[in-house]
């Protein structure tokens, strides 16, 4: 029998059903890997007992001849942005340290109801704000990948879903949840050589997910292969009356619909994504991706998304504005930390609590957001950004008159060393240059591994689809996956 922790979600599901192994054996194998990987700091809380509990339920159901659930026997990791009943949920912040929800987020509940078991709560950038997992109150997540040639520098697993990406690529879990506001599923997937999909805005309920920027936040799966993403997304998606922006639509059978035959599909290549000075290896990877999609039968056309250069500055007005509003709830009264200096009144308590509870990047974004929403500046910044956002969305609409999907790089570089970009917030923001536009337009977008760069680090390709057309995105992802033959994995050092 092959190593259980090398199996994909589909292989675990099918192997368990076929009697090749028990669910408990699978859970124990992953629990052991989690326990042995403290050096990666991928988990904030480990819940081996939850994984075993779900596994035992699956084994019992199977022994009794009961109908098995879609994810029976499959353990997963849960990003610590999803509220989990009875299990600490922190958003990687000091503010929520010790917060133990009395309810379960819709997305996590759907996964548990489908038979999945929880290996633990995965580390992330604080309140999902960051691209390198260096803003977590619980310490950096270390990527399992290292540069070749004996360079042992600790590398970023990407962010904000950096615990998820590190854990999957290190075989601590076969799949995990992520959330994506401006690239937080796709960029970490690219940095660690795995896949992940941000579905259309509204597909997955935001209820019970710690809010960052509500018009952008969207949950999605992360896993090593495209099929696993399709399997998980089918369970995670679906209408939820508790989220006012949840789409009341049937969930397609994405796994059954998988096909890497792209004949009749047109792939748009947006010329604005190839600026002067684009990293030559990224550019070459993109060209290989284009060739793979052609090989799968697709026709390639050049398209233009003229407002692309304005996407990042638009995002860095809208996301902080929404964050400043969403994070106003952390007041030291209802949940989370309270800092009450001697003799302090209510207002002093708010200010002291928030000064102690938020990290520097979170404060920076709250303050930017407060400023752009303040009297006298609202129209110049926020309204202008919402207008430019409409133009960015229109760019995509016009492009999709000429093509069915878009292919771009996922990130402008491979993973970088921890600390390398931390001094300059703007340099860090530029990581999301290729992922933010699809977020602003609410479109489904996926990262899939394309290969390794000269340093031996993974590079990703991004597929962006029409609203609600996750199937074409997944299918193009599968076509790339089949041709890229990406089998590289980090050499174990942890």
């Amino acid at each position: 029998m092959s190593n259980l922790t090398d199996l994909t979600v589909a292989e675990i599901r099918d192997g368990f059903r076929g009697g090749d192994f028990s669910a408990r054996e699978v859970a124990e194998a992953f629990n052991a890997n989690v326990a042995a990987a403290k050096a990666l700091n991928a988990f904030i809380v480990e819940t081996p007992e939850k994984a075993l509990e779900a596994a035992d339920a699956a084994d019992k159901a199977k022994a009794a001849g009961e109908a098995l659930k879609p994810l029976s026997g499959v353990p997963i990791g849960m990003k610590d942005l999803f509220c989990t009943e009875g299990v600490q949920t922190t958003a990687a912040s000091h503010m929520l340290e010790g917060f133990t929800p009395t309810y379960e987020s819709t997305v996590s509940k759907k996964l548990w109801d489908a038979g999945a078991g929880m290996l633990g709560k995965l580390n992330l950038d604080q309140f999902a704000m960051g691209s390198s997992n260096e803003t977590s109150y619980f310490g950096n997540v270390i990527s399992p990948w290292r540069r070749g040639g004996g360079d042992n520098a600790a590398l970023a697993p990407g962010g904000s879903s950096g615990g998820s990406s590190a854990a999957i690529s290190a075989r601590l879990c076969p799949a995990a949840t992520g959330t994506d506001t401006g690239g937080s599923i796709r960029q970490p997937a690219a940095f660690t050589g795995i896949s992940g999909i941000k579905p259309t805005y509204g597909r997955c309920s935001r209820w019970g997910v710690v809010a960052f920027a509500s018009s952008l936040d969207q949950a999605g799966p992360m896993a090593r292969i495209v099929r696993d993403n399709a399997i998980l997304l089918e369970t995670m998606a679906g209408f939820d009356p508790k989220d006012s922006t949840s789409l009341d639509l049937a969930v397609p059978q994405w796994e059954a619909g998988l096909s890497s035959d792209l004949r009749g599909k047109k792939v748009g290549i947006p010329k604005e994504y190839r600026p002067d000075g684009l990293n030559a290896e990224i550019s070459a990877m993109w060209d290989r991706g284009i060739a793979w999609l052609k090989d799968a039968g697709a026709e390639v056309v050049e398209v233009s998304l003229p407002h692309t250069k304005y996407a990042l500055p638009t995002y860095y007005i809208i996301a902080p504005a929404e964050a400043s509003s969403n994070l106003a709830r952390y007041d030291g009264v209802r949940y989370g930390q309270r800092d009450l200096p001697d003799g302090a009144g209510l207002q002093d308590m708010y200010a002291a609590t928030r000064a102690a509870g938020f990290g520097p990047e979170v404060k920076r974004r709250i303050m930017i957001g407060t400023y752009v929403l303040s009297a006298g500046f609202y129209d110049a910044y926020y309204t202008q950004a919402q207008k430019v956002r409409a133009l960015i969305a229109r760019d995509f609409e016009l492009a999709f008159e000429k093509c069915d999907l878009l292919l771009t790089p996922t990130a402008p570089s491979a993973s970088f060393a921890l600390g390398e970009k931390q001094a300059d917030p703007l340099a860090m923001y530029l990581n999301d240059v290729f992922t933010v536009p699809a977020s602003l337009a609410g479109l489904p977008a996926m990262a899939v591994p394309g290969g390794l760069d000269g340093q031996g680090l993974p590079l990703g390709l991004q597929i962006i689809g029409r609203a609600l057309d996750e199937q074409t995105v997944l299918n193009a992802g599968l076509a790339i996956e089949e041709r890229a033959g990406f089998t590289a994995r980090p050499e174990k050092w942890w």
Partner: protein
Amino acid sequence: MSIDLQTVKKIASLSRISVTDAEAEAMVPELNNILGWVEQLGEVDVTGVEPMTAVIPNKLRLREDAVTDGNVRERVLANAPQAEHGFFAVPKVIE
């Protein structure tokens, strides 16, 4: 437009985040860098463009005006830093 120390302190106060003078001073160039960079949006011609209000066209639903939740006081208070007699407790607001 660039912001000065006074403005940073005002934003911090509006944000209900206490900052020391040294912290506020360090934030002046940081926030100016970011704001200077986002100001390039001013050059985009947005004549006749409506600000986006919904990412995906989606009509907000109405539901029957009926009680759907409640009787969960203990659960609501379970994570409060200070809860007394079934209430959230805060420092004295009025002398």
